[in-house]
């Protein structure tokens, strides 16, 4: 189901957390929601989850305004907050059981839903642990399992990857991809931009409560790359001299060492100068073994579109 956010505004006292933001989430897409701290991501997601009343604006799920009829869309939305479940008197299965009951599942339907999500999120060995005994990654799994209990069509995830180790992140990513394949629309806010790169099909970038850009990732990266032409050079060997040599070239704006044997070169004047710059670089006669022109990932689009200001 499509979600359309129209002109959403929300203030807390004098702070304008959201300033008439609008964007569109197509069905089955994984859309990243990125922005600096305090940009208003959590606020927007909470409004979409029906927890907060906006000052103005609409969130349309199909033809239904979710702001006015939150009770009618509950079953279709799964909201994962940025806080983790925690309690030293509740076991994992009880936590899931409570939410299953809350979503109206009873008897066989309830137990099969619980075992389904436990299997999906690899919780099978944990159900008898207390929530407080779990590690962060496990809590995240439990939280994800809770979100999936009622099989929602739309997932709103607020920083699901925060504090996870690389392995847990990869697992989370795999889960999300699987879910998207099942046709769920996933809206995911995250700081860890590289997490979104491989899986997201679109991005919404927000800063100081305003949307700075949004759309399909391919479109966004093309437009970002347009002004930001860069080349990655892999060399047989790399030292300061070579770096200086490249930096000295006429069409090179900057060259920095990006890894042991790689240089990231930024071209003056953008894509238009790409070919001339390449010619200049090869004319130096350096031992270049490979060149690459990376797409602009979410990280760059993000860095490019935002100024790092917070309201």
């Amino acid at each position, binding site marked *: 189901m499509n979600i359309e956010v129209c002109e959403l505004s929300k203030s807390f*006292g004098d702070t304008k957390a959201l300033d008439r933001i609008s964007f569109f989430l197509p069905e089955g897409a994984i859309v990243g929601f990125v922005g600096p701290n305090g940009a208003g991501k959590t606020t927007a997601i909470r409004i979409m989850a029906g*927890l*907060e009343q906006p000052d103005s604006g609409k969130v349309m799920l199909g033809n239904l305004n979710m702001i006015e009829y939150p009770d009618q869309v509950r*079953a279709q939305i799964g909201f994962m907050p940025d806080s983790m479940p925690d309690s030293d*008197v*509740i076991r994992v299965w009880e936590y899931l059981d409570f939410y299953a009951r809350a979503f109206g599942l009873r008897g066989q339907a*309830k137990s099969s839903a619980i075992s389904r999500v436990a299997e999906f999120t690899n919780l099978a060995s944990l159900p008898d642990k207390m929530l407080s005994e779990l590690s962060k990654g496990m809590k995240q799994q439990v939280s994800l399992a809770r979100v999936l209990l009622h099989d929602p069509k739309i997932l709103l995830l607020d920083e699901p990857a925060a504090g996870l180790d690389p392995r847990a992140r990869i697992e989370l990513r795999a889960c999300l991809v699987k879910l998207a394949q099942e046709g769920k629309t996933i809206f995911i806010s995250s700081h860890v931009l590289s997490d979104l790169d491989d899986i997201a099909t679109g991005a919404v970038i927000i800063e100081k409560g305003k949307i700075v850009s949004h759309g399909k990732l391919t479109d966004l990266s093309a437009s970002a790359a347009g002004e930001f032409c860069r080349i990655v050079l892999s060399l047989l060997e790399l030292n300061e001299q070579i770096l200086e040599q490249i930096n000295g070239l006429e069409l090179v704006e900057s060259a920095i060492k990006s890894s042991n044997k790689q240089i990231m070169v930024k071209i003056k004047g953008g894509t238009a100068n790409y070919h001339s710059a390449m010619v200049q670089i090869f004319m130096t006669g350096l031992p270049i073994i490979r060149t690459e022109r990376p797409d602009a990932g979410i990280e760059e689009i993000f860095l490019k579109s935002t100024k790092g200001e917070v309201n």
Partner: protein
Amino acid sequence: MAHFKLSSFADTISHSLADSLNPVLVKDIRESLRSRSLYYCTVLVIFLQVLLFVLNHWSVRDNDSVNTILRFYLMIYLFCAYVPILSLSQNWRKERCSDALALEHTTPLTPWQIISGRIQAFGVLWFTLLVVGMPLPAYLICQEPVTVFSIINSLFMFTAIFFGISFFVNTGGKRTELLNILSVFIFLIAGSHIINAFVSGRNFARAYQWISEPLIVIYFSVLCILLAILYGAGGFKPIRSNRYWIPHFALFLAFLSVPFALSFFVFHSVITVETASGWGGVFLTIYGVIVVSFATLANVRITERCRLDRPKNPLLRIIYWLCGPSAVARYSFGMLLMLAGCAIVCYGQGVITENGLNYDKFNDRGLLFLPSLVMCAWCYSCLTRGICSIFRQKSLSVLFSIIAFTQVINVFSSIVDGDAKIFSLFSPFASLFFDAYELIIWQGSFSLIMSLWLIYTLRHESRRQ
């Protein structure tokens, strides 16, 4: 070993909770079962009962020794019952302060289901503790010519108040240490009062007209528990979710008016003579303070939410002008004003009682008139303001404002006017039924002013929404 058994006991019950129960009740039962203090306290209470039963059986039985045993037992029992109640309220507080309560609102559970689940959970725990603690007192009292029912009734009611208040305190705040200290105070004060009332005045129910005190106690205890639970369920603001504090608050107001109306029925029909002096007066004053505090708090919250910085209401305007933009300052100032008013009212009542002044004289009543008028006006304006910003529909705003109006005018007319009858539940028209000339004048003019105020506030405040 012991631990293992307890937790497997809890798990067994946890697994067997029926699907048809309210999910919130199920969750709260599970949480309570895991609190080890519940088991320790239960075991202690049962052990103590057996011990004292044996002791009582073999010792010389006179009234004094029975009283001593009861006193000792009740002291320990109250403490033991207090601990699990405290741990349940702390769980709720944690839920309110973390995002857990807000998360419950993203499920199809309605706010009412959440609130009623909690009411049920509180009831189950409290009832269990009461049943566990009752055999010994019941046995001891059976030996005497006092009806068991009246004793159990009184213990039941007093513990309701006591637990209700402590619940209220513990779910309301955020700082654990402060709340723990506060609950110890409540425990010491309320606990000792309960024990005394129970042991030394065991037949207090007969000493007074028997209907009056238990009923008042019932109403106030119901009130306290409801307030506690509603607040625990996020009465004012289930934090970080502005959408769901409104239904909670509306329910809260609705609940507020029902027991208050009932308790007024009791006050007016049963103890009208004592209303303005002695305990009746103190009760009324406390009641006034509670109403006023809630109204003030509501007002501040609503001002924050709607950012209405220039209220039309003249009294609010003065306060905003004096206190500047800080909501806390406004609230503190409003409360200070109210407390001053209450102090004057109490003092006035003291003077009237001490000197045996003639209450029917208008001059004596006039002593209380001004402060209570100010309190009434403030309280009413706050309530109206709150109500107007809660409901989008004007008709609901008007309805609730009228309820608030009759309630507020009740409080203060009772403070001022010792023998207002139950008719004053319908205050604006009550004066018509009285022959008393002054009553007609002052209640009539009061009603007129209030009605004008109602119209004025409604027009201006609701338009802003």
